[in-house]
C-alpha cells in the first residue's frame, strides 16, 4: 500500500508522526493532519508526558484496528480539510481549495464500495476523526435516503432473518414511515 511520500507543505510546523496499521504498514503523517484523529492526539499527548524523546520522531503509534487502505483514504481526506495551523489564505486561495475539496469528495464517493464506506466510518469512529465521521456518515445517509428496505439489504448484504409475518407486522406498525419510498 502507498506510503504518504508527498512533499510536505511548508507550514509552520512540519513535524511528522508515524502511524502503524493493522497490516503493519507505516504511514508518516504531518502532525497537523494526525491531530485531527483525536485518538492519535490523545496517544501523542500521553506519550509526550511520559517520554522525553523528541516529538514524534521515534514514536510509532499503533492502530491495530485500521487497515492501511482505509488509513490512506482518511489521511488523504484529512489533508484536504482546512488546516488549523496553516497560514491564512486569501479569499481566492480559499475558494480554489474549497473547489478542489468538493471535486475530491465527489471522486472519492463515486468509486466507493459499500463495504469500504463502512470500513471508513468504522475507522473514523475508532480514530475519533470528527470531520471524517460526519462526511462519510452523511454520504451513507444521502445514499440510502428514500430507498426501499430491500435495496438497503442488498446493498450491504444484510440477511433478512425475519419470518414473513413478523416483517409484515413491523411494516404495518410503522406504515407511516414506509410511504413515499422508491421501490426499485
Amino acid at each position, binding site marked *: 500500500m502507498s506510503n504518504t511520500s508527498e512533499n510536505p507543505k511548508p507550514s509552520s510546523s512540519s513535524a511528522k508522526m508515524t502511524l502503524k496499521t493493522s497490516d503493519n504498514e507505516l504511514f508518516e503523517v504531518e502532525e497537523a493532519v494526525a491531530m485531527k484523529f483525536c485518538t492519535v492526539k490523545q496517544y501523542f499527548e500521553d506519550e509526550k508526558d511520559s517520554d522525553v524523546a523528541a516529538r514524534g520522531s521515534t514514536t510509532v503509534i499503533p492502530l491495530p484496528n485500521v487497515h492501511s487502505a482505509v488509513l490512506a483514504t482518511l489521511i488523504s481526506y484529512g489533508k484536504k480539510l482546512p488546516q488549523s495551523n496553516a497560514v491564512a489564505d486569501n479569499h481566492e486561495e480559499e475558494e480554489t481549495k474549497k473547489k478542489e475539496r468538493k471535486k475530491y469528495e465527489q471522486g472519492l464517493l463515486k468509486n466507493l464500495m459499500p463495504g469500504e464506506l*463502512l470500513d471508513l466510518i468504522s475507522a473514523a469512529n475508532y480514530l475519533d476523526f470528527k470531520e471524517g465521521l460526519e462526511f462519510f456518515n452523511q454520504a*451513507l*445517509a444521502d445514499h*440510502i435516503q428514500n430507498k426501499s428496505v430491500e435495496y438497503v439489504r442488498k446493498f*450491504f448484504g*444484510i440477511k433478512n432473518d425475519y419470518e414473513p409475518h413478523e416483517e409484515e407486522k413491523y411494516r404495518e406498525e*410503522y406504515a407511516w414511515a414506509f410511504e413515499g419510498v422508491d421501490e426499485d
Partner: protein
Amino acid sequence: MADNMDMFRKLSEHLILIIISFLPFKEAVRTSVLSKRWRYIWHGTWNIEFDERAFVDFRESQEMQASQRRGFIDFALQWIQNYQGRDIDKFQLTLSKPENFNGDIQRCISFAITHNVKGLGLDFSDPTWAEDNLDNHAALLDLPLNVFGHVFLESIKLFSCNFRNSDFMNFRALKQVSFGWLELSLSFLKALLKNCPLLESLSLKKCWNLDHLEISGQNLRLKSFVADNCSLISDEIVIDAPYLRFFKYSGKMAHFEIEIHRSHMEEADLDFGIQFEHYDGIGTDLYNLLNQLYPVKVLTVCSFMLQFLPLGDEPVRMGFDMRIKHLTLKTSVHPFEFIGIRFLLNSSPHLETLTLDIGPRRIFGGYRPPVRVNFNRFWLERSIKYKCVQESLKVVEAKGFKGTMHELSLLAHMIIYGRVLERMDVTVSKEEGDNGGNENRYREIANAMLEFPRASPILQISIK
C-alpha cells in the same frame, strides 16, 4: 450486488446507532425492518422528529383527522416513554390544532429538555393556512416556561408558538433561530441579535407586525438570513451583515439597503411573486438591489424580476461582470421574461449552470419591452450570442418542460451555441396541459431536441 456477507457484522451496535442518527427520523424507523439485529437499535437515535403529516390525511374529515392526530401523539408519547438513550441532538414536533393536546405537548417538550436537546423545533402551524396572502393566524400555544431554563439551547424553531420576549433572552447560546407565523416586534429582533453573539442563521416566515426589517449590530456573525412572506408595516429592509453568505427574500418589493462583504456573500434568492403591482422606477430599484448583492455566485430570481429588471435605466445588463456561476430562473418562459433573461446572461460571463424552473407565473399585461424585439426569433437570432453560453456554460437543467415553442427555442439556443456544454437535463412536467398536452407528449417533443445541431461534441442530453 451478489455479495452476501453482511457488511455490518463487524460494526458494533453503538456505531450502527451513530450511523442511524445521521438519518432523518423516518428513515431511522425503517431500519427496524432490515433484520432482527436492527429491530431496536434505532430506538436510541438522538435525532428525533415527530411529524403529524405522516399520520394525518388532510383530505379526510375533521373527525378522521382528529383521530389520526390522536394516534400520532400516542405514538410519540409511547416512543419517548421507552427511550433509553441519554442526550439528544434534535427534537422536532410538528402538530397542527395543538389546543387539545396541551398536556401531551408539555410531556414531549419536557422529554427534550431533560435530555439536553441541542436543537428544539416546534411547529404548530396549520398546513391549510395559505402562505401567499396576507392573512395572519394567532398562535394557539405558549412555549412552556421550563424551556427557558435550558440556557444552552443552540437551535430553536418556533412556528405558531408564543413566548414572552423577555424570557427569550435567556437563550444566549443560540446559533440558529427560525420563527414562523408569529407576531414579532422590531425591538425584539434587535434585542435578539444583540443577545446572541453566536447567531449564524435567522429565518422569519410569515411573521407580522414588524415595523420594518433591520438586521445589523456590532459583531454580527450572521451567515444566513431568510425573510419569507413577512408583512411589514413599512416596506424597508436594512441589512448590515459583513459575514452574510446566504440571503433569501420572498415578499413584496421593498426599499433595500444591504451592506455585505465580497469575501463572504455567496448566494441570493429573490422572489417577488407576491407583488401584483408595478410602478415607475421599479426596474431601477431592482437593479439597485442586484447591485448591492454584487458578489453572489449563486442567484435565484423570479419571473417578476425577469420582467421588470431591464425596465429601469439599464435595459441591457449590469454595469459590471457578476460572479454568478449558477443561475436559477423561476420562469414560465414567456416572451415578457426574455429581455430579463438576456440581461442576466449578459451580466454573467462566468456562468456554468443554468436552471430553468418552469411553471405558471404571473405575467403582467401592462408590460412593454424597453426595445423593439421579435419574440419569436429572440433565441434564434444568429447575431445575438452570449459569452457565457459560448465559453463557460456547462450544465443546463429544465424542470417542468412542456414543449412550448419558446421553451424549445431557448433550449435550442443553448444546444446550438453552447460550445462547452456538457449536460442538458430535461425533466418533463407531470401536469396535463390545456390543449391535450401530457407527460408523454412533452417527452416526445423533448426527444426532438436530440436532433438539434450541437456546438459541443461532449454534450449529453437526458430526458426524464
